[in-house]
């Protein structure tokens, strides 16, 4: 694997491999010294064109736990504001010879575009409303930990599917891992022909009880000004995951940050069914596994893609 651009590029085996590697790294996070020298001397560049605290710090933490050097480059307050194009920014930063560039942009396909302009391994940390592959991987990891497996599960993704890169990556990843995916939300926020991705579409939560996993999406306030839904009050009345809708044996997920009282009620966030904190925790180990997969032995001879999983060198 040279880049992580899209979940589309990962078959079940590749997802399993990354998740298994993440499980090994999880042990590192529980140690007193949370660091292994696996990527010592490697440089990871975080290039973020959108405000992001969680994803950026999660990647930063992952790289640091693998002993890589990390440089953070945020578009605001930089040459980008002086009118530098994405291409020139990437070419300029490439002169520092990063081994990996973690890229977040508001534009679909930007990560793939950047992968053609430089030799670094590109990790797509969100490209517009297209994909967010590490989120999908950490969600698979979290579900595995919680439920043991994903095969045969019914997973409902609820909310603003149209504007969600998380939804798109997860629809693909959950199905590759053997789950049946249903998306539900207001008709204005469910893209026409999303069924082409293999999922089912519902406009109400009437059958939510059939779900094993409820994955709520963030309802962004700017969707209100764009008049996608008549009011947040009505949205909450129809689509909020709360104590009435959430069953005791269901698992509740959310990519964060949560709008308490909108897509999730307070009691749902704090319920034992919620694995939201576990998702955040999984973010670091999964991103460690992704960076390790991409960078370990990148310049040396590498194990073939479907070969045995290399063991990390633990300190």
């Amino acid at each position, binding site marked *: 694997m040279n880049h992580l651009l899209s979940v589309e590029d990962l078959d079940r085996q590749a997802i399993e491999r990354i998740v298994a590697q993440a499980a090994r790294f999880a042990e590192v996070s529980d140690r007193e010294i949370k660091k292994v020298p696996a990527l010592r001397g490697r440089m990871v560049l975080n290039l973020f064109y959108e405000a992001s605290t969680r994803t950026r710090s999660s990647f930063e933490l992952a790289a640091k736990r693998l002993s890589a050097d990390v440089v953070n480059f945020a578009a605001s307050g930089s040459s980008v504001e002086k009118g530098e*194009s*994405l*291409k020139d920014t990437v070419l300029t930063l490439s002169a520092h010879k990063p081994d990996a560039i973690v890229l977040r*942009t*508001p*534009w*679909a*396909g*930007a990560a*793939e*575009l950047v992968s053609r302009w430089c030799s670094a391994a590109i990790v797509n940390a969100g*490209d*517009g*409303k*297209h*994909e967010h592959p590490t989120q999908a991987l950490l969600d698979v990891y979290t579900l595995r930990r919680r439920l043991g497996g994903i095969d045969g599960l019914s997973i409902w993704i609820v909310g603003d599917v149209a*504007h*969600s*890169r998380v939804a*798109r990556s997860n629809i693909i990843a959950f199905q590759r891992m053997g789950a049946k995916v249903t998306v539900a939300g207001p008709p204005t926020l469910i*893209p*026409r*022909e*999303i069924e*082409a*991705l293999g999922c089912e579409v519902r406009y109400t939560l009437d059958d939510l009880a059939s779900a094993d996993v409820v994955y709520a999406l963030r309802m962004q306030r700017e969707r209100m000004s764009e008049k996608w839904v008549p009011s947040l009050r009505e949205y909450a009345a129809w689509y909020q995951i709360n104590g009435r809708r959430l069953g005791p044996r269901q698992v509740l997920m959310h990519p964060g940050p949560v709008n308490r009282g909108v897509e999730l009620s307070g009691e749902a966030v704090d319920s034992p069914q919620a694995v939201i904190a576990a998702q955040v925790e999984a973010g670091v180990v999964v991103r460690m596994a992704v960076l390790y997969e991409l960078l370990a032995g990148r310049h040396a001879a590498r194990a073939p893609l479907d070969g045995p999983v290399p063991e990390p060198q633990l300190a």
Partner: protein
Amino acid sequence: MPAAALVHGPYSPAELLLRDVHVRDPRAELDARRDVLVRGGEIAELAEPGTLAQPEGAEAIEGEGKHLLPAFFDPHVHLRTPGQEHKEDLHSGTRAAAAGGFGGVVAMPNTDPVIDSPALLGSLRDVASREAVVPVGFLAAITRGLGGEELTEMAQLRDAGALGFTDDGLPVASAGMLRKALQYQRLCGGVISLHEEDPTLSGAGCMREGPVSAALGVAGIPSVSESTMVARDAELAAYENARVHFQHLSCAASVEALAHAKERGVKVSGEVTPHHLLLTDEHVRDLDTRMKMNPPLGSEEDRRALIEALRAGVVDCVATDHAPHAREEKEVPFEQAPMGTTGLETAFPALYTGLVLTGALDLGTLVARMTAGAALYGLPTPTIALGRPANLTLIDLDAELIAGERGWESRSENCCFAGRPLRGRVLLTLAAGAIVYRERVFSVVAA
């Protein structure tokens, strides 16, 4: 009112003997091998092959195995002048036309500034009379600055040489505004050409709404954004007894609306582009910015409907919507890129390869549709007949090429067919009686 005419730079009339070429002109019912003599820029003789002697001072070209077609006419190009000469200018754009076998083009007025005043149009025609390699005609804007709120001085613009009117690039969103333009057409004539798009439906869309846009998370433009406007404006044209032309139709429902209007005798016509005839939204899956255009590439069902409409004559002609953009403008993420693809240099080989060689269309029909654009704007149709000005293109139908392999005559390279293997190489183009293009490696038997 003077007849609006095409403008071109200084020419010397061709003296040329084309020996043993396969002449194909569906309108002249010509489909045979001929010697063709061009004298003083006119078609002077059409004779059995091997019978014409090379006159003193004339060039002779051995055409055996090559096809001689009437030069194509493109009713829809963007030459970017004035204001965006970094993308294209009148010289580079008409060179691209000549290289594609076109003997005439019509340039759109969405330049910077917009061609919305007689003075601007006059100076543009003046530049064309110096720089244009093939004859070029100009449309003027329907509304000032393409703002959609005030009519341009349509009658004055016609006097200054406007072939017709369009706000191309943008729709005339207000039905009331368009109605006024259609009423004014009674005074000044000139076809009113319409880019059909309902901006409240297309919104921030970057590609056709459908399974691919859903998978990519890219905002989609629904096909009804176009088809509802075609239906609306056909109704307005019927009510005002006006003449309207629908530009770059891209979906099945639009051609249905066009067919319905034609059946009712409304004075409407339509054009379709090579990219909408040959590509679909599946080609957008890689988010290649060369595949971003407006209207966007549609579904396979749309594509098939467009081919059938072109074959049946519901859609009257092919137009390239040649829309050059500089490299740095297109070398950005898909959603940030401007809309448009170049098309003049690839139109014939792309359509010949994609439609004629696949059996979807016969060559005669393709030639008819690629020359029909002239008549839409009241101009003579390029025809291979005695005494007519030489508007000709010599093509090697068997020659293979990779689109763009030898670079482009256009200043821009944003061609959606770039890199594709195609058949049908343009070897020579004559426009208005002059040689305007020779393929670079084409060997000429000297006098």
